[in-house]
Structure formats: C-alpha cells, structure tokens
C-alpha cells in the first residue's frame, strides 16, 4: 500500500533551490524596482530579463540530460493535512523557462523603442516583470494549488496589461472582459482541484500521479487505496467523477488558452500594447492552458480527452474561419492564435502529447514574430499620424506596398507567415504535420464520426494559408494606400523601416521559425524535440483510460505519414494560390481595397463577426441573466422584502419591550459590574497614597496575613 506522507515528505536541502529562487526572483525584482526607476525602467528591466534568460539557458544546458529534479517542502498544515509546495525541473519546465524568459527578453527590448514616448512606461515594464514572474511560477511549481495561485497572478498581469491604456474605454472594457471570462474557466479549474483533493488528499502532482496508479474502477465506482500516516484510506466516488475532474481541469485551459466557448476575450485583448499581445496573448500566457494540460495529461481519462479533442478542433476551425475577413491586422493574428491554440489542445486531446508541446514551442516563435513585425508596422504608421492626419494604424485598408519601405520587416513577416501556413522548410510544418498525423491515426483507431476531428484540422490548414497570405499580399504588395485615403501624397516618403531595437527581436524570432532549428529533417519525429519528449502513458484506471498513441505500430504511422504530409502541404499550397488570386497585386479586390466594404454574404458576415458568438453572449445569455436578475429583484423587493418588513415591524414592537428590559435589567447589571470593578480598582489603588511608610507597612501586613492564612 502506498503511503501519502512518503509521497509529499519534504526533500533534503537541494542547492538547486537557489537557482529556482533566482529564476523567480529576478522578474520579481523587476516588478518591484520598476515602481521607482522611472526613466531608467526600460533598460533596467531588459537587463534583468537578459540575466534571467542566461540563467534559464544555463540550467537547460546543465540539467537537460539528468533526471528531473524535485524539491518538496511543507507550506503549512491544518490539523493533520499538510499543504506542501513542490518544484519540479524536468525537460518541459526547462524548455518552457527558456522560452518564456527568451521571448520576454525580446519583447522587453522591442518595448524599449515601442513605449519610448509613453509617460507610464515604468509601470509597463513593472507589469511585464510581474507577468514573467507569475508565468515562471506556473512552470516551476508542481503543486496544483500553488500553480493555481500563479495562474491567477498571470490572469491579473494580463488584465493590467490589456487595460494598460485604461483611458481608452475599449481597453478597460476589454481588460474586464478578459478577466471575467477567465474567471469562468477558473471556477472549472478550481472544481477540478477540489475533486482531486477530495479523492487523494493532496495537490502535489507527483503524488497525484503515484496515487492515481493505485486507484481503480470497481462496479462503476472510482476507488482509491492508499495509507495516510499509516492509516488506511479508501475514497470512493462515482466513476463519472474521474471524467468530471479531467473536464474541470480542462475548463481552466479553456479560459486561459481561449478555447470555445470562452475564446471571445482574446480578440478584444488586442487593445493592449502590441508587444504585450506578442508576449502574453500569443506566445506564452495563452499557452499556459496547454502547459497545464500537459502537466495533468496522464490524469485525464478517455472521455475527458475526447472533450478536449473536440473543443480543440472546433476552436481551430471556427477561429480560422473568422480570421478570413478581418480588417484589423491584430485581429487577424488574434484569431489565428486562437486557431493555433485549438490545434495544440486538439493534439492533447488525441493523446499527441509531444506534438502538442512541439507546436506550443514553434507557435510561440512564429506567432511572436508575426506580432512583433505587426507591431513594427503599427508603430511606424503611427509616426505618420499628426494633429491633421488621423487614421487607424491597425487597419489593413491603410497599408499596402510596405515591402518597399520596410524590407526587413517584410522578410521576417514572410518567414513567420510561411511557418504559420505550415509549408515545408519552416517550423510550423513540422509541428502541424505531427499533430495532423497523430489526429488521423487516432481517428483511424476510433473510426466513424471521430474522423470529423482531423477533417476540421485539415480544413483549418486551408483557411490558415488563405488568411495569412491575404495579410501578406494586402500589407506588403501593390502600393501604399494611405496617401490616397488621407489625400496627401508626400506622406509616403516619411514611412521608414523600424530601428534595430524593433527589428532585432523580430529577426531572431524569424530565424527560430525556420525548421533547421529543430533539425535538418522534414519529418517531425526525427526532430530533436520529438526525440526528447515522448508520449507518457495514461495512469488512470485501465477501464477508463484512453487509447494511447504509444500502442500504434510503426507501420501504421509510416503508412499514414506520407499522405498526411501530402494532404497538408497540398491544402496549404491551395490556400496560398486561392489567396494569390483573390488578393494578388492586380486583382480587382486588391485594387480597390481601401474602399473595401464589410463582407455582405451570410458566410462573410458570419466570419467577420466570429460566428456571432459575442452577440449571442450579449443578446441571449447576458440579456437572459439581466431579465432573470430583474425578476429576482422584483421577487426580492416585493415578496422577500415584504416578509422582512413584516418581521421588522414585529421586531420593532418586540424590540421596545427588549429595550426596556435591557435598559433597566441588563444595563443595570452591567452598571453594577462596572461600579463594582471600579470600587475594587479604587480599593487596590488606594494603597498608593504616596507615603512610603504606608507602602512598607501595607506590604508587610499583607505578607503576614498571607502567611497566617497559609499556616492556619
């Protein structure tokens, strides 16, 4: 029988804790110190993040091949229940710290230029520090409760950064929306935590995994067997709670990783500064949901995983469809992010653990790169604005032909776009290919209706290629449309390439989006990433466990691989061609794009409004809630208040009686007590006459009296 206390016992002191504290401490220092640094904040914060990046790289190189390092300690105890904290440094944690720190550092550098004229930039960098700190907390801690706390901190920093320009009404509304919708997901996550705690009595992930192995399904009941402090524990729940726990944990990921039906906050979150969108709402924070899924992966049962896969596929498809017709460059990228996150979640759902994580990493680089280059464009266009000339610097309609003015930006954008579309030679191809291959193999095993999931994945590939090349063509080719719109032709010559602080981070991210970074290979399973991250085996009771991809034979994979690759490359190529014919420099659509109206057809409107999901929430759910609360208010006012008022009247009458009693009987008693203790005080104090002879005499008399009483 397995003993819970052994599993969560504090480990011996391990000097690694200093490194972990450094990793968490440096961004924390950035957070605190930047309240005081004022003008020096950008350089100081960037320097701190550089230090942290170096630390994480050093750790990754040193501990990559070793066993995972686990540090546990006691946080506090309530009665017999001990709440611990545990740190866990495995390859996943190592590579995530490098990723988060690295991209955070690049975004810091980028922001030095981007936020140069902002009066509140010290606060901005401070918030970035808070975000990095909390994100690293999620990564390094291996205890669900502690992770949940950092999870909330990440939500807080996201809220602060989305609403950074809070004078703008839309920004503060977007921040509220993100925060509130994330809370819905967090309620789910919290319920998942509670189910697991009720069953196992610990939040420690390692312990949960070990205990899960010893739980089993007996007569449809989910039963755990372990000992706690030597006492045998047997917790039994209905078997469906096991699925419920997995789905509840997934709810947290649905909120944070913007999955259907809670994805509506992410497009609005683009109200924040663009580097923030790159760091938080594209590369790192939104991936936290996927990271959480990876951490609890082995605790999910078949049903929960099916839900995960379905939600992921639906999200990927819906968002890619919505991205087709947006006019705001950041909105396109936002929907694209949702869609790609859908891929990762889908991958987790079909059991493609390593493919999902691989996509997390590659996506972080190319989407970060796309956002940063978009940021350069927005920033440089913004420079053209003046008191007389006003325009929306994020609108695709004012752009066009920018490759002439900003060649390096164009090149970076193009590389990242190719990676996103999943064309061979770029990182996105490898990871997407791996996901699609696994999803197809999974559907092949399950058969029938399950094929809808990979099919949605394939359609998304097509849409992805269309919308991203639509961006490439509309932004960079043909001619600069702004002069025509504002009616001032001289303005075009003022547009310049961004300076090196803006360009350098984008270049680095573009380089990291080339597939050679992950190995000179066209097959995903031959990349170093896939070699190092193998799919773990499910630990849930066998009756409930999902089919594991590990059980697939190599032949099945090989057989599928070539045609999966062909279909996905083919679809991407078709998307590229469709996009070319629609938006190529001389196409009709491109020529008059500055006057392009909003799409009219039912499909177009569906896409532009993102399936009317926001309207649905606003007009149906929100309205329903308002109506309901109105009726409750009526009930409360008329019925409950009426009863309460009636009671109150009776009470008033009663109170008068009580008052009389209180005034004369109770108060009388209290006054008597006060009077009595006052008298006692007067008496004991009265010895203090000030005459020293009296003092001595009274002391001695009391001594003698005590003695007499004692002896007789």
């Amino acid at each position, binding site marked *: 029988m397995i003993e819970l206390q052994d599993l969560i016992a504090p480990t011996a002191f391990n000097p690694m804790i200093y490194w972990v504290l450094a990793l968490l401490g440096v961004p924390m220092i950035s957070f605190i110190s930047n309240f005081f640094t004022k003008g020096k904040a950008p350089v100081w914060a960037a320097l701190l993040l550089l230090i942290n990046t170096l630390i994480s790289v050093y750790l990754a190189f040193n501990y990559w091949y070793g066993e995972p390092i686990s540090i546990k300690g006691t946080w506090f105890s309530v009665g017999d229940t001990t709440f611990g904290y545990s740190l866990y440094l495995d390859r996943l944690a190592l590579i995530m710290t490098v990723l988060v720190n690295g991209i955070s550092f690049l975004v810091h550098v980028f922001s030095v230029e981007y936020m140069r004229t902002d009066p509140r930039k010290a606060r901005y960098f401070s918030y970035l520090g808070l975000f990095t700190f909390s994100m690293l907390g999620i990564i390094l801690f291996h205890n669900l409760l502690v992770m949940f706390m950092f999870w909330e901190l990440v939500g807080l920093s996201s809220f602060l950064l989305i609403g950074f320009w809070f004078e703008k009404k839309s920004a503060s509304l977007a921040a509220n929306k993100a925060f509130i919708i994330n809370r819905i997901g967090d309620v789910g996550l919290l319920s998942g935590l509670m189910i697991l705690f009720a069953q196992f009595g610990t939040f420690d992930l390692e312990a949960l995994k070990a205990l899960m192995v010893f739980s089993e399904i007996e007569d449809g009941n989910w039963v755990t067997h372990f000992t706690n402090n030597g006492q045998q524990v047997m917790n039994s729940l209905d078997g469906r709670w096991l699925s419920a726990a997995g789905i509840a944990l997934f709810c947290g990921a649905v909120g944070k990783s913007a999955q259907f039906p809670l994805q509506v906050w992410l497009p609005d979150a683009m109200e924040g500064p663009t580097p923030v969108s790159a760091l938080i709402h594209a590369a790192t924070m939104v991936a936290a949901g996927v990271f959480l899924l990876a951490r609890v992966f082995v605790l999910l049962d078949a049903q929960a995983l099916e839900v995960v896969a379905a939600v992921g596929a639906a999200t990927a498809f819906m968002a890619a469809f919505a991205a087709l017709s947006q006019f705001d460059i950041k909105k396109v990228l936002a929907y694209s992010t949702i869609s790609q996150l859908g891929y990762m979640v889908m991958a987790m759902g079909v059991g493609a653990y390593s493919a999902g994580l691989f996509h997390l990493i590659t996506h972080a680089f190319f989407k970060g790169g796309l956002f940063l280059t978009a940021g350069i464009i927005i920033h440089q266009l913004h420079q053209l604005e003046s008191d007389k000339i006003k325009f929306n610097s994020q609108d695709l309609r004012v752009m066009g032909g920018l490759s002439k003015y900003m060649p390096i930006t164009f090149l970076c954008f193009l590389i990242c776009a190719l990676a996103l579309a999943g064309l061979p030679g770029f990182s996105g191809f490898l990871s997407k290919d791996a996901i699609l291959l696994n999803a197809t193999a999974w559907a092949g095993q399950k058969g029938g209706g399950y094929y809808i999931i990979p099919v949605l994945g394939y359609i998304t590939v097509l849409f992805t290629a269309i919308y991203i090349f639509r961006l490439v063509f509309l932004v960079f080719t043909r001619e600069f449309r702004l002069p025509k719109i504002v009616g001032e032709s001289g303005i075009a010559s003022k547009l310049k390439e961004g300076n090196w602080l803006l360009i350098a981070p984008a270049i680095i991210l573009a380089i990291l989006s080339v597939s050679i970074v992950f190995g000179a290979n066209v097959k995903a399973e031959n990349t170093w990433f896939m070699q190092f991250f193998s799919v773990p085996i499910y630990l849930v009771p066998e009756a409930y466990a999902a089919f594991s991809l590990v059980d697939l034979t190599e032949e099945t994979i090989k057989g599928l691989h070539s045609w999966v690759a062909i279909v996905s490359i083919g679809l991407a190529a078709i998307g590229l061609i469709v996009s070319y014919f629609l938006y190529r420099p001389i196409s009709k659509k491109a020529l008059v794009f500055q006057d392009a109206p909003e799409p009219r057809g039912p499909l177009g409107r569906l896409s532009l409004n993102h399936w009317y999901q926001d309207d649905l929430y606003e007009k149906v759910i929100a309205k329903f809630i308002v109506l309901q609360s109105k009726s409750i208010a009526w009930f409360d006012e008329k019925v409950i208040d009426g009863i309460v008022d009636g009671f109150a009247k009776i009470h008033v009458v009663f109170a008068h009686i009580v008052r009389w009693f209180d005034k004369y009987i109770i108060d009388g008693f209290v006054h008597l007590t006060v009077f009595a203790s006052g008298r006692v005080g007067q008496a004991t104090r009265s010895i203090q006459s000030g005459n020293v002879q009296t003092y*001595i005499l009274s002391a001695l008399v009391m001594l003698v009296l*005590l003695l007499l009483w*004692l002896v007789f």
Partner: protein
Amino acid sequence: MNEQSNTVSGLGEQLSTLSQDIWYLAPELTLVITILLLLGFDLLFKNNKNLGIFSLAISGLAFTFFVTIQSFDLASSVLSLFNGLVVFDQLGLVFRALFILAALMMLIMATRTDKLFSDFSRSSELVVLSVALILGASLMSMSVNLVMIYISIELVSISSYILTGLLNGKQKSEASLKYVLFGGVASAVMIYGMSWLYGFTGTLDISDGAFYSGLSEVATLPLSIALVMTIGGFVFKLGAFPFHIWSPDVYQAAPTPIVALFSLAPKLAALTILIRFVNEIPVELFDWKLWLGIIAIASMTVGNFSALWQKNAKRMMAYSSIAHAGFLLVGLLAYSESGNVALLFYASIYLVMNFAAFLLIQYFEKQGGSAELKKMRGLGLKMPWIGVLTVVVMVALTGLPPTAGFNAKLFIFSSLWEAWQIEGQPVLLWVFIFGLLNTVVALFYYLKIPYYLFFKKSENENSPITVNKIDLFWGTIFVLPLLILFFKADWLVGFLNSINFVL
C-alpha cells in the same frame, strides 16, 4: 560537586578550579569589560561623547549576545561552577540572551528622543548602570547559592535605584528614595529569611542535597516563615503582589527606556531564581504552589483593576507589568516540560510587546510632552501608521489574535490546564479562572489608548504632524515580531523545545 567542595583542601587547587570556571562566564566578562571601557572613555573625552558611548555600548552588548549564543552548545549538560555558587545551563542562557536583547532595545529607544539622547550621552553613567543592571540580572539567572542570589539581586537593585534618581527632577528623586527604602526593607526581610534557612540546613547552596534534607526536618511553621520571607524578596524583584507598591511611582518618574528595561530584566531574573528555588523545597512541608498561586491571582487582579483608573500611560503600564508578573507566575505554576516552553515563550513575547509599547508611548510622549492619556487625543489620526502599530501592541498585551500575545496566553493557560488535570490542585483551577477573567478586564484599559488615539478629538485640530522616518522604521521593527510569531509561532517554539530543561 558539593562533596568535592568540602574535600578540596589546598588553596592552589581551589584557585585553579576557579580560573577554569571563569571562562564559562564569558558573557558576564564581556559585560564587565564593556562597563570598564565605557568608564574609561568617559574619563578620557570631554565633549561629543554620544557616538562613542553608544557605539561602545551597542558593540559590547552585541558581542555579549554573540558570546551567549556561542556558549549554547557548552551548556548541553548542566555544569556547577565556582564550587556551587552558580550553575551554567541553557535555561539561564536563554534568559541572558533576552536580557541583552532588552538592553539593546533600550539603547535604540534612547536614541529616538533628543532629550533622552543627550541625557544618555552627557556622561556614561546611565549606560554603565544599565549594563550593570543586566550584569546583575544575568548573575541572578544562574545563581544557586543564597549569598550569590542576595548579591546579584542587590546589584540589580542598587543600579535600579540610581537609574531612577540619576536625572534631575523632584519627582525622580522622590521616586528613587521611595524605591531605596522599600527595596531596603524587602532585602532585609529576604536576608532574614535566608539566615533562617542557613540555620536550618547549614549550607548556602540550594542545589546541595543537604539543603533539601535539612529543610525536610524542620517543623512547618518556622519553615513557612523562613520561606515566605525569602520568597518575599524575590517577589519584590518580580514586582508582584504584595511587593508591587513601589512600581507605579518609579515607572512614572523614570525615563521611558529605563522603565522598559525595569519592566523586563529584573522580573525575568527573579523568575529564574524562583524556578530554581522552588525546585529545592519539600512540597510536603510547604505548599509553594498554593502560595505562588495566591500571589499570581492577587497580582493579576490588583494590577489589572488598578490600571483601569490610570490617566497616565506609563503608570498604566506599571500596573500592567504587575499583572504580567502574575501571568509569568502562571507559567511557573504549570511546572512541566510544556509549561516551561510556554513560560519562555511568554517571556520572549513579553519582552517584545513591552518594549514596543514603551517605544510607542515614548513617541506620543515626544509629541504631547507627557504620557498623560488626554495628551494623546486624536494623535492616531495624525500619525496613522504609529496609531495602527499601537493598536497591534495593545491587542497583543491584552492577548488577542492576530498577535503573538494570544499564542503566549494560549500556551501558558493550556499548560496550566494540563497541570491541573494531572495534579488536581484546586488552586491551579482558581488561577486559571482568575487569569481568564483578568484578560477581559485588561481589554478595557489597554484599548483605552487606541480609543484616545482615534476616537477623541484632538485639541489643536489643524496642526499636522510629520513623523520621522526612522521612528516609523523602529516602530515597525519592534511590532513586526508580534504579528510574525502569531502566524509562525512554531519558529520560536521549535527553538525553545530544543532547550535542555534539567535544573
């Protein structure tokens, strides 16, 4: 050991034992050296002595603290030194460390008011006498010989008399004289009792087996008279009933940092003597628990009820310290392993909260000119941070959460309850009941200070007060342990549990 002291014949051999034992007294030696250095410095320099005096005193005390901590391992088993004059054990070391901390806190307090700072540094006398007081208290905490006990008590007493009256002022001289006379009588009673004890047993060494066996053969009446008189002297230093009458006058007159020291070091030292002394008394013949229980009840009641009427914060704290002497005796009554931990915990928390309270009162004294409660009206709103700190300290002194004062009271009363359940002596239950009732009474007068600070309108509404940043810093540092040790009481308890309590 005692056998040895009788058989040692050659003078040389005795001297060599003494010269070996002296090294165990390293903390006391450093205190003596500090005193000598301070005196020498005072003679050599004429002007601007403040920096020198304070740095000498603080570094001397800090070094002593260091040495005390260092000797902790040496005391893992109890050693009897100087042919049974003193014992060297961990219990004594804990108290000595507390005394030195108290002295350091006193010096910090002294720097916070300009007038006190110049008083303390005009000549080294105040500092030298304070260090001498600490030296006396340290010796008290390790004495097991009646003569040694008497001498160390007198060292503390004489230092205290002078400290009270050293500064100019009629009130101070009067209080000092009362103190001397009262203390003289108490000493006389005590040494008379001791002479009886010597007559009964023929030995001065209370840890000697002959002491116990000698006492066992005496009739109850003479034994009771002798013991009551002897313990009366200890109770005088403890400031408990019935020898408490001196304290309000002295507390009101003496400078606030000195008062804070008075309310701590002699009390705790007397407590250690009591711990050692009652351990050697045959319980069958003299029921010391009953006796100390009555003293504890009386001290708590007299202290708390008298405090209700006070209009001066320092005088109020004097009565509060009488009441606390009663609470400290509760720990002694719950005489067991857990009772001793509770006692030491209470003593440590009492040190912190007492000093914090006096420091904050000193701040208000600086603003209003005196420690009268009515001068504090509305100050809490003008100095919000200091006001909030005061509330925390007062809540701690009452013994309510979320402060360590609550843990201290909880530990001490729960160990008393345990003791009552094991031994079933009715007096323990009475102490328990009176202790809890007194805590309620204490609430009224302790919260009187926050009441004056926040709810009474101040006389001159519009004069804003700027509080010195360093004042805020020290205030916070003094108060912070009370909050931390509430949430993390196990830090201190864990350390205290590791102490070897063999007497």
